[in-house]
């Protein structure tokens, strides 16, 4: 796929006016790998409980691998129920003092953490790329800046909660049990921990099984920042540890980001308790392109919408709804653009598409894409050489897709775009909303009133007009319908952690 093959030769009348130039040699970008030396990964890590790294009670460990090479990066303790209980107890002990601290003091801890993240951002970016498989370009330019910004933002709230619109002196809930996914390991940690601490809660966080490392580095950052013991606890492990955490009777708040299926299970678990619950789940975002769209920017937005982080994004624009009158033109441009995407070593600064996070996820993407083909959709990928080791999937788009196709309904969570058409704005809205999800949507048109009219009718929590996949700590994020409930980010994000 990369570098781009030359376009098919075209008649060149200009050549009659001047000497025919020699054919240009290809502009091959030589490898430009980010140095791995900046990060020092230990051969093994324990659970972070009560300010100390400790082994699991039963001594169990699991390996974490680099998805781009399948190389084992480290061995990590696997938390069981007893460990989760120990972590919750530590958080409970820490809660009384932490919640009683003046907000200004809590703020300073968070500011410290934000600063240390900034200082160590290159190291953390490389670490995240190694453990997750996403390109260094993204961890460096998106994940890490947003992580630091999120801590800065909520640090500032810690001593201003009286002014947040939740009444005077709003109180924290207690111990927050937080379970996060593998697609943005450190960013999702920031989205969970920053508002929880700012409002005076203490935290037990379980990172995803396939991406535990950045959370453990974050534990070290907490120690460097002098954060009191037990305020943040990190328990690594699989779904069982997550289930134990969300079911723990002494947890006051459950926050989960992940699949809708697990989200529903958690909702059943907390039913009948007084635990406050927020869920940020799946999506099947529609990216709607009208015939008067700024086409070149729309193409970039489509690419960014579905190939950012290999499409492993809950708010991905995985359904392209394009007005029939510009379908062919847009698809030509889109395909041409896809041929310039560079897939490969995630540590190479010029890589656009990295590895899929795990063999399991790759199998799911592969199965759904195969099903799309079997159901009659037309599959297309740019010519693309996949590395031998690791988990890879070529950027893929399907045309001739209808609402009835599985690939138009199920969240694929991979670099697979389903292209559907519409004729009128109301048809576009009807199709966009025709899903149990409701997380994100995109609108591309140069007509301002149409943006407002369509945005108003879309049942989704985040809508990008003439842009896509933009995030900011001040901007609330979260879904309608089966995409979950509650908002993360902004003033709204405080509510999830306050007793209001």
């Amino acid at each position, binding site marked *: 796929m990369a570098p781009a093959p030359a376009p098919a030769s075209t008649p060149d009348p200009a050549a009659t006016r001047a000497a025919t130039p020699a054919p240009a040699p290809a502009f091959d970008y030589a490898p430009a790998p980010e140095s791995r030396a900046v990060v020092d990964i230990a051969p093994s890590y324990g659970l972070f409980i009560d300010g100390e790294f400790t082994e699991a009670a039963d001594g169990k460990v699991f390996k974490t691998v680099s998805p781009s090479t399948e190389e084992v990066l480290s061995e990590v303790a696997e938390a069981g129920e007893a460990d989760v209980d120990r972590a919750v107890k530590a958080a409970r002990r820490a809660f009384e003092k932490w919640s009683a601290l003046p907000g200004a003091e809590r703020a300073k801890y968070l500011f410290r953490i934000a600063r240390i993240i900034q200082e160590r951002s290159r190291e953390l970016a490389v670490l995240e790329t190694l453990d997750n498989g996403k390109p260094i370009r993204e961890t460096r330019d998106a994940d890490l800046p947003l992580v630091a910004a999120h801590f800065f933002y909520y640090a500032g709230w810690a001593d201003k909660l009286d002014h947040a619109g939740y009444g005077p002196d709003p109180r924290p809930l207690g111990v927050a049990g937080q379970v996060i996914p593998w697609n943005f390991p450190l960013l999702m940690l920031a989205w969970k921990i920053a508002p929880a601490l700012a409002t005076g809660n203490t935290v037990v966080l379980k990172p995803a099984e396939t991406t535990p490392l950045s959370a453990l580095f974050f534990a070290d950052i907490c120690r460097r920042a002098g954060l009191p013991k037990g305020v943040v606890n990190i328990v690594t492990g699989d779904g069982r540890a997550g289930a134990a955490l969300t079911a723990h009777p002494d947890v006051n708040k459950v926050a989960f980001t992940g699949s809708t299926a697990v989200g529903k299970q958690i909702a059943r678990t907390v039913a009948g308790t007084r635990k406050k619950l927020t869920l940020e789940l799946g999506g099947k975002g529609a990216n709607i392109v009208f015939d008067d769209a700024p086409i070149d920017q729309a193409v970039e937005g489509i690419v960014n919408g579905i190939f950012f982080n290999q499409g492993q994004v809950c708010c991905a624009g995985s359904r392209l709804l394009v007005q029939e009158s510009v379908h062919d033109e847009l698809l030509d441009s889109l395909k041409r653009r896809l041929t310039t995407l560079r897939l490969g070593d995630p540590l190479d600064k010029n890589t656009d598409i990295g590895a899929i996070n795990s063999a399991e996820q790759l199998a799911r993407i592969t199965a759904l894409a195969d099903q799309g083909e079997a159901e009659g959709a037309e599959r297309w990928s740019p010519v693309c050489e996949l590395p031998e080791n690791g988990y890879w999937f070529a950027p893929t788009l399907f045309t001739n897709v209808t609402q009835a196709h599985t690939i138009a309904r199920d969240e694929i969570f991979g670099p697979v775009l389903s292209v559907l058409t519409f004729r009128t704005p109301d048809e576009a809205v009807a199709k966009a909303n025709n899903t149990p999800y409701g997380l994100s949507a995109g609108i591309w048109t140069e007509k301002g009133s149409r943006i407002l009219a369509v945005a108003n009718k879309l049942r989704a929590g985040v809508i990008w007009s003439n842009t896509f996949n933009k995030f900011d700590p001040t901007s609330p994020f979260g879904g309608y319908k089966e995409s979950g409930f509650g908002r993360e980010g902004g003033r709204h994000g405080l509510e999830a952690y306050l007793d*209001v």
Partner: protein
Amino acid sequence: MSDARLSVLKTYKLYVGGKFPRSESGRVYEVTDSKQNWLANAPLSSRKDARDAVVAARKAFGGWSGATAYNRGQVLYRIAEMLEGRRDQYLAEVADAEGLSKAKAAAQVDAAIDRWVWYAGWTDKIAQVVGGGNPVAGPFFNLSSPEPTGVVAVLAPQKSSFLGLVSVVAPVVATGNTAVVIASERSPLPALSLGEVLATSDLPGGVVNILSGRTAEIAAPLAAHQDVNAIDLAGADEALAKELEIAAADNLKRVLRPQPVDEADWSATPGTERMTAFLETKTVWHPTGALGASGSSY
């Protein structure tokens, strides 16, 4: 009735889609006052009545949520006006239902009327209170605004048959949701009568649908219904609330858990929580380019 005239008794009916149907079940149950004296028969709603009510509520959602906030405020205020005119009827029904003195019943009815007025004033203010611009770090105009969740199933409080009912229904519809309301099981008559006021208050049919019957029986299909977006468990006891919350997880309904019964003081001025519980926050990003660099310098 001191004279010889035989009074005309009212047949209480459901209020669904702006109409007053009998229960699809064809069944009724006896409603008594606090001293077990028979007051009237109330329809015993079935799961099919619940289904029909959801269809009506869904059908009404587009128009009601799309109405201007000012218009919704006008309608809610109109409800208060209509209630004021029939104050005595509700006073009697509440006194019978809850075994209250005339003065205490009057206080309940007056508070309920005032509650409609209070929420009428909220319709065009809540967006300003809970929405707003977000100063994102980039060339974007970013605005968060609240939107109604959709169809809300409401289990009205069991004890406070009228003030409690109004206190849970008004905030749901003020923001543009539509509601399927299960009246107090023991004291459904004030709720069923409310339908008569709603029908004459410019409230579009289907915005509020009122069912009477066995709460647990009607609530179960509503909690499991895939086209219901949220559920207010105010009228559920602990065991029922848990059961319904589990069923509600199937399509991730927004769940407002019941307040402990002893703490339920419906006469206190509410906060915004009953509105925000059934609001979604939608955030829209718009690029803001520069005007373009311009000008000659030679």
